[in-house]
């Protein structure tokens, strides 16, 4: 085990009393509580932490935060592993196991590095220019295996996630000086404030810089403000929480990484009245030859490793800059004990406080210098600096680059905000935005602490005022630290060799220039052609440099060249977090019918029908599916069956205009129905397409009960209301869906009446008093019941609707009374065969989104009806009256033996390709008839009765005869018995 050679003897926010052991790339190391995997690796002197995507170049850490492009690791093993994490976002815990992605066997010795040798033959977009013969697919397997970073865990995720929803007055994103000032200002006015911070600790730059705010050291001021905020009941502070997406109407998604309890991550959906974006700024790398060697880092990252983790990224550093913010940072490193070999500034000699301080510290400054070359194989050993006076080589093990700053405008851009280019500061700053948000601090281009504090505080006060809340204004926090100059001069690339722009995807300045040469001059083309910015770091360090090099190459300004619109998420979001707790049965609830438990106890096999768990058959010991189904069918045909049809839609329609309303809704006339009677009806949409069917009961002159198919119960309830509210608001009608209030138990079979008599109804159920297609409101076994004499099986049937809570009691009572008469519970398998034998239409199975009432034989009914109804005009169109439309008919095999498969297509002629002459919609081997039968939609079928048609079954074509769909009891004698 190596020692922590780069750990400074003191300093940092780590807890040195709590050492942690971890493994990286097969070796074991030690770190401390408070480390990230990145800081711990750096402390241990691990230089090569990964390999680049395309050329497998050895790479070291470049950043300390979410912008890290190089250190991409898989953390954990097996089902709990997570691929493609940035080492900078992984908090160290004891026993952590991590390994780099995209290399084998290790990051230091990677067989894939051979790819680097071929790099010159693989410029941007090379794959568009080759791999065409014989076909791309021929090469694809090898390319796919080479691509991809980490490996997904093999199994399901054992950990859990959840969703939280929140509303607040002011959401502050970021807890650095500006964000904190905004939160304090808003919270002291009594607003409901949420402040979120993506890092483990609040404070942003207050944690890594030595400043004084309101007379206190920055960290003390931070602690005081956090204490004050924490004491307010209306304030929510969330660390380890990234604002990942900014959506319409001020809705933001937050991803919280939970450290305690059973939940791994929490997806917040927050609706904020005002948003303050204090997202800070990310330092830009510089683009110069061989700028990707391990040891070349962002200067700000070096500083953060020192201040936050007590880690020196190296012993002897060179700083390379084009701007004044580097001076303070270099000085901080110097004070922490890192030797600064030189500060190389590309500009002419400058004089300001920062320069003076460096000179006073004895740090050499090299003016008009650029790093032209870097040295060292697996890690930096030195750089060659070019100045007008000549070249010199400087020994160093780390190079800090400071190429200027990019405000993190991602959320502002996602919110629909525009960006404006600040030519003096060389940065995109937030422009106008339509949503209720404001960017502040470094995220708004303010690099000086005093400005950040003032800007943030003012935004907090403004947010409260814009929420319409009373403002308690106090003095804004101030600092007496001079932020120093932030002047900058463009240095977009240093020519002379391969210089990386997008480190992870291996896009070099040369690739950008090649893209421009090949006319990929739109920034979006550049991205897509070179893959610049498309890696898992989402281009945080590469986008602006790439854009600027493209602009230079094309002779345009940066604003002329444009910028890409930032898309969510700001940092990648675990897919499992989107699912949250909505997994397994909670993903889409399984609805259970009122008598479910009884079915379960009786051996029912359930399937999902429109979300409902319904018994398909009741298995007895030793029975197979077919046997159970046939037994149940025989029970219905010879004795009786009991079927639960509770999902059947039930909608009460009431009011003086109820009959008129239903006349307009149904294809047939309802107003002529007498109270106490039932009528079967069809509904179409305005295109004349059948959308539902069912039985309407007239309960009274102004009162109807509309029945719908189970799958459409909700939709038809909405459909009726849409017409009432949006088109016929003058009709005096109210509707009320009551589907789940009433259970539906259907007793059917030749002995149904005898059984119902035993069960007991308080009304006359005799054939004459209660005929087919009539309705009674009364009691069955003392339970309030609405009973319909309507049949789906062709046998005498009673559809008994009772309050759902009493359904099981009645069911058991009926079963008890009926069992001696041969009553059996019946599942859907049998039910569907029974109705197929009767040729009853099953909307959704026999019909599809093209079927009209005319197609199912309702032409006469349509032409009889004088009144207008929904869809009528469409049914008058000539295309709907054509004789070659598909008609609903019966079909039976000519040989009387071969089963006709559902879904099989039909043809009248041999061997043609193209439109078929119909298809089979329902089929069974009829138990009652002892032969296969089916229902079908057949071209001109009604006029072709008795003709034969070829069934194109997967196992081979055969002949079937077109017949009436009424296979069983066509006269309806059993039905009306």
């Amino acid at each position: 085990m190596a020692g922590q050679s780069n750990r400074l003897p003191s300093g940092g926010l780590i807890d040195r009393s709590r050492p942690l052991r971890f493994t990286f790339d097969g070796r074991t190391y030690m770190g401390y509580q408070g480390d990230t995997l990145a800081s711990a690796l750096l402390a241990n002197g691990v230089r090569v932490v990964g390999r680049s995507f395309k050329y497998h170049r050895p790479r070291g850490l470049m950043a300390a935060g979410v912008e890290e492009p190089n250190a991409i690791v898989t953390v954990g093993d097996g089902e709990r592993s997570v691929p493609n994490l940035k080492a900078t976002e992984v908090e160290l815990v004891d026993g952590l196991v991590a390994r780099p992605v995209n290399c084998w066997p290790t990051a230091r010795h990677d067989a894939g590095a051979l790819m680097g040798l071929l790099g010159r033959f693989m410029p941007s977009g090379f794959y568009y220019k080759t791999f065409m013969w014989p076909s791309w697919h021929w090469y694809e397997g090898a390319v796919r295996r080479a691509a991809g970073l980490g490996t997904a865990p093999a199994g399901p995720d054992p950990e859990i996630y959840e969703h939280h929803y929140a509303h607040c007055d002011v959401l502050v994103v970021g807890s650095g000086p500006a964000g904190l000032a905004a939160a304090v200002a808003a919270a002291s006015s009594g607003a409901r404030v949420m402040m979120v911070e993506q890092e483990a600790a609040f404070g942003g730059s207050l944690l890594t810089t030595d400043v004084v705010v309101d007379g206190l050291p920055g960290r003390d001021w931070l602690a005081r403000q956090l204490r004050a905020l924490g004491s307010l009941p209306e304030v929510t502070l969330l660390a380890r929480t990234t604002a990942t997406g900014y959506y319409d109407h001020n809705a933001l998604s937050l991803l919280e990484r939970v450290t305690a309890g059973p939940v791994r991550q929490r997806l917040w959906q927050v609706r904020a009245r005002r948003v303050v974006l204090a997202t800070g700024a990310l330092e830009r790398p510089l683009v110069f030859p061989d700028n990707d060697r391990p040891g070349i880092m962002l200067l700000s990252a070096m500083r953060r490793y020192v201040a936050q983790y007590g880690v020196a990224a190296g012993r002897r550093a060179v700083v390379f800059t084009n701007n004044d913010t580097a001076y303070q940072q270099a000085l901080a490193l110097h004070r922490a004990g890192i030797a600064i070999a030189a500060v190389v500034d590309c500009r002419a000699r400058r004089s300001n406080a920062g320069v003076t301080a460096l000179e006073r510290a004895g740090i050499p400054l090299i003016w008009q210098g650029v790093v032209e070359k870097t040295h060292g194989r697996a890690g930096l050993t030195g750089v060659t600096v070019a100045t007008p006076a000549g070249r010199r080589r400087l020994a160093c093990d780390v190079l800090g680059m400071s190429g200027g700053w990019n405000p993190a405008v991602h959320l502002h851009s996602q919110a629909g905000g525009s960006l404006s280019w600040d030519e003096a500061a060389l940065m995109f700053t937030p422009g106008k935005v339509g949503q209720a948000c404001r960017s502040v601090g470094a995220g708004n281009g303010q690099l000086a602490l005093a400005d950040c504090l003032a800007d943030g505080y003012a935004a907090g006060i403004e947010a409260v005022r814009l929420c319409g809340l009373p403002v308690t204004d106090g003095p804004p926090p101030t600092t007496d630290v001079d932020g120093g100059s932030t002047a900058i001069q463009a240095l977009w690339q240093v020519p002379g060799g391969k210089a990386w722009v997008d480190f992870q995807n291996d896009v070099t300045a040369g690739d950008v220039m090649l893209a421009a040469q090949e006319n990929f001059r739109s920034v979006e083309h550049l991205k897509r052609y070179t893959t610049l910015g498309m890696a898992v770091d989402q281009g945080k360090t590469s986008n602006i440099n790439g854009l600027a090099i493209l602009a230079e190459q094309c002779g345009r300004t940066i604003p002329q060249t444009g910028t890409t619109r930032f898309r969510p998420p700001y940092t990648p979001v675990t897919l499992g977090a989107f699912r949250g707790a909505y997994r397994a049965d909670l993903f889409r609830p399984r609805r259970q019918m009122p008598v479910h438990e009884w079915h379960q106890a009786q051996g029912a096999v359930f399937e999902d029908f429109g979300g409902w768990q319904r018994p398909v058959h009741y298995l007895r010991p030793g029975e197979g599916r077919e046997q159970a189904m046939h037994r149940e069918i025989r029970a219905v045909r010879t004795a009786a069956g009991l079927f639960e049809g509770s999902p059947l839609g039930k909608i009460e329609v009431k009011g003086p205009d109820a009959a008129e309303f239903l006349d307009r809704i149904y294809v047939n006339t309802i107003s002529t129905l007498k109270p106490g009677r039932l009528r079967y009806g069809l509904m179409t949409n305005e295109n004349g397409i059948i959308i539902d069917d069912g039985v309407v009961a007239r309960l009274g002159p102004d009162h109807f009960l509309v029945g719908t198919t189970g799958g459409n119960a909700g939709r038809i309830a909405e459909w009726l209301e849409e017409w009432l509210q949006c088109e016929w608001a003058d009709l005096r009608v109210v509707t009320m869906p009551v589907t789940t209030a009433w259970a539906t138990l259907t007793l059917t079979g030749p002995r149904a009446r005898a059984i119902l008599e035993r069960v007991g109804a308080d009304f006359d159920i005799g054939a004459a008093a209660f005929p087919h297609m009539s309705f009674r409101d009364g009691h069955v076994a003392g339970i309030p019941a609405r009973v319909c004499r309507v049949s789906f099986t062709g046998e005498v049937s009673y559809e008994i609707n009772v309050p759902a809570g009493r359904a099981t009691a009645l069911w058991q009572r009926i079963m008890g009374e009926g069992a001696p008469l041969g009553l059996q519970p019946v599942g859907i398998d049998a039910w569907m065969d029974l109705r197929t034998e009767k040729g009853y239409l099953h909307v959704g199975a026999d019909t599809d989104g093209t079927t009209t009432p005319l197609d199912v034989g309702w032409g006469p009914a349509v032409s009889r009806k004088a009144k207008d109804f929904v869809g009528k005009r469409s049914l008058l169109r000539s295309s709907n009256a054509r004789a070659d439309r598909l008609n609903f008919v019966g079909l039976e095999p000519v040989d009387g033996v071969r089963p006709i498969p559902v879904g099989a297509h039909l043809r009248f002629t041999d061997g043609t390709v193209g439109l078929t002459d119909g298809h089979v919609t329902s089929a069974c081997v009829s138990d009652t008839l002892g032969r296969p039968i089916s229902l079908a939609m057949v071209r001109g079928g009604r006029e072709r009765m008795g003709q034969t048609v070829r069934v194109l079954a997967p196992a081979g074509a055969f002949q079937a005869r077109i017949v009436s769909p009424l296979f069983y009891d066509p006269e309806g004698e059993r039905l009306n018995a």
Partner: protein
Amino acid sequence: MSSYSAWGLLRHGLGARDWAPAWRDATPRKRYKVVVIGGGGHGLATAYYLAKNHGIRDVAVLEKAWIGGGNTGRNTTIVRSNYYYPESAALYEMSLKLYEGLSRDLNYNIMLSQRGIVTVAHSRHELEVVQRWAGAIRANGIDSDLLTPAEIARLAPIFDTSPQARYPVWGGFIQRRGGTARHDAVAWGYARAASALGVDIVQNCEVNAIRRGADGRVTGVGTTRGEIEADCVVMSVAGHSTVLADMAGFRLPVTSYALQAMVSEPVKPLLDVVILSLATGVYVSQSDKGEMVLGGALDLYNSYGQRGNLPTAVNVAGAAVEQYPALGRLRMLRQWAGIVDVVQDSSPILGETPVPGLFINCGWGTGGFKAIPAGGWLMAHHIATGSPHAVAAPFSLRRFTTGALIDEAAAAGIAH
């Protein structure tokens, strides 16, 4: 146009520095025979086939921003021809066949990957739909094979085919010739080939007026880069067709919706086929780069906002993890939206508009990418010959008046 080849890469790798622009960025001239509005796949393909098949090279493609930046660059890159009706099958099969030869025709690798597209049924009803659908496809002379749950499990081990799954797998079918292609490459390949044949590709040129003569016939367009005269104008602006139709003064049966898509971070190969689940409507594939590409839902309200929405991400990603449990710990890298033209019958509109000389190509809904070669080919045919190609004829705007709709969604059992 210099030819692309492995030899070319070798030569340049050894020092040549003369890669030519893939296409010419043209400055618009005062007049063209044909002006194509919209530099997406369909517009560029129209220009290419006008030049290649019909010798009409006096053509400009006007793109308001950058070519391929609309739905061509925002889709989930799926190509297939597993359609129900013969009219649709003829159209999409023509397109797939053109795709099969496109890399070599354009001398540009569009990375056609015929890895197979699997449609999965999760209930008895869906299985019946699938059986009927697959039968229709075969009847149309197109490959499609029914799959058992075990076969689906073999093709896509990460798909949850266990009986305990919330949506258990009952079966499905595969079109083996279906798959994916690299969307940007299709746009760039057509642009390069069209440009080489003399077509002017004009970027950053937004059309703001359709000019018509006294006889009502189209005479040209007004643009942000000046007036351009033309004998013929083609609108090929998926998602934004109504905006142009308004300029020309006719109405369209089109609604614009945002279609959401997202990708995960790249991982090593997990999934070799494209899968569509009928129960959730979510489709998943893995790009050659390793990203899991997830698509699923429209935001069902009118929108021209090309941006992601949170409820859709929750629904699509949630369903994807439910059906592909191994994706749970992967992370979503990008989410975006394209604006799609949705027509009542889910079929495109191809052909003449009420304005003489003005043609339209729109209404592809969520599936325009797969139709790019055919859309371009058929439109070029119509313009050049003056009458619609037989394959395009059923897709005229007139069908909404006659009622002769070609309702693919309806046939797929998705009742209204």
